[in-house]
């Protein structure tokens, strides 16, 4: 009998990079930046996952997908841990991930525009002056926000004034 060999951590990362986000299937879990670490502790594989939004309903599906995929690859002892610190930020979405989002019709986050809750400049933000979001279809920056939320907690709704298409914006957090 061939001795069971432990897959390397690189191999595990490669497998995880094949898993799509359940709500935005063009982007993988690793491109989304929610897999924080992969580590063998003795004979147990420990995967640390951070939630995007604390109430994101995809979280449990993501955990199930990770477990299913790794068990199918032969990982027997597996532990998934929730890691809250540091909290997830859209800065962790990879460059490839951002390009895939755009090609899929979702404008990627504009870095450095996360809400800070500071009251100053509220009027400027209200008119959308603070964030320029380019239309993922025609590239125009003449766009307007329709709503601060969209089809999932991580998105806002926008409309392009040039091509007139509505689109989702992956908001910065």
């Amino acid at each position: 009998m061939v001795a069971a060999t432990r897959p390397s951590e690189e191999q595990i990362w490669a497998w995880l990079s094949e898993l799509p986000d359940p709500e935005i299937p063009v982007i993988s879990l690793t491109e989304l930046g929610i897999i924080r670490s992969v580590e063998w502790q003795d004979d147990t594989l420990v995967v640390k996952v951070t939630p995007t939004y604390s109430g994101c309903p995809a979280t449990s599906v993501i955990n199930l997908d990770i477990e299913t995929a790794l068990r199918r690859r032969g990982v027997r002892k597996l532990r998934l841990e929730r890691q809250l610190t540091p909290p997830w930020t859209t800065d962790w979405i990879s460059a490839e991930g951002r390009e895939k989002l755009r090609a899929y019709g979702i404008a990627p986050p504009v870095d450095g525009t996360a809400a800070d809750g500071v009251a100053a400049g509220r009027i400027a933000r209200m008119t959308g002056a603070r964030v320029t979001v380019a239309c993922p279809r025609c590239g125009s920056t003449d766009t307007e926000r329709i709503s601060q939320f969209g089809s999932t907690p991580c998105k806002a709704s926008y409309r392009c004034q040039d091509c007139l298409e509505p689109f989702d914006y992956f908001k910065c957090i």
Partner: protein
Amino acid sequence: MSSLPEMTHAAATDRVSREALFEGLLRIGDSALILGHRVSEWCGHAPALEEDIALANVALDLIGQTQLWLELAGTVEGKGRSADDLAYLRDAWDFRNLLICERPNGDFGHTLMRQFLFDAYHHELLKGLSASSDPRVAEIAAKAGKEVAYHLERSSDLVVRLGDGTEESHRRMQEALEALWPYTGEMFLRDDKDAELADAGIAPDPASLRPAWERTVREVMTDATLQVPDSTFAHKGGKQGIHSEYLGYILAEMQFLQRAYPGASW
């Protein structure tokens, strides 16, 4: 879970009584839960599709945060109660939410005004909690704080739009502000348990949050052309488990399934 939470758990309960920490966590988690449930009542009823989606997402954030707070509360209590047990199997007198969170939704403007007054407080509270001497509290607060900063931007934008909008929207927002104002004072009252948590550096003294809250509220109300009431009268009791009749109706709906079919899951 790793061994770290166990160690910090011991450290945190050295500094404060288990009871004070449990109560403090219920106060934060229950306010998020009850307001989250209230806001979720708008699902399918908001004046526009975008607002319907937005309200549902705010509710989802609050209920997600509740899960984290009540899970930690259950751990601290040490009686094996899960977040779901605490949410679905306690009766009204065991809830510790602020009274403002159980106020009826009223019209859309009233809901937004309640949201803004709470968001401005919640934002300051979470900022204070993210510097907690208990790392388990600090990490939940840091996570939730990012979501709440966004809630605050949204609710303040809408309060300004509606306050400084039409004659009718202005009138409704002014009425909402006056009706809800007496429920804001409770946010900043402190009792022995608050004092114990503040002394241990686990949570900010509620009174210390008031100046920043007032600054935000007054700035937004000025932009919204609304008059902040002069009254300092405050309804209180929610934090100690003394609630208005509304909480019972909320729980009747929220807890029905677990009460009728104990242990049901899907």
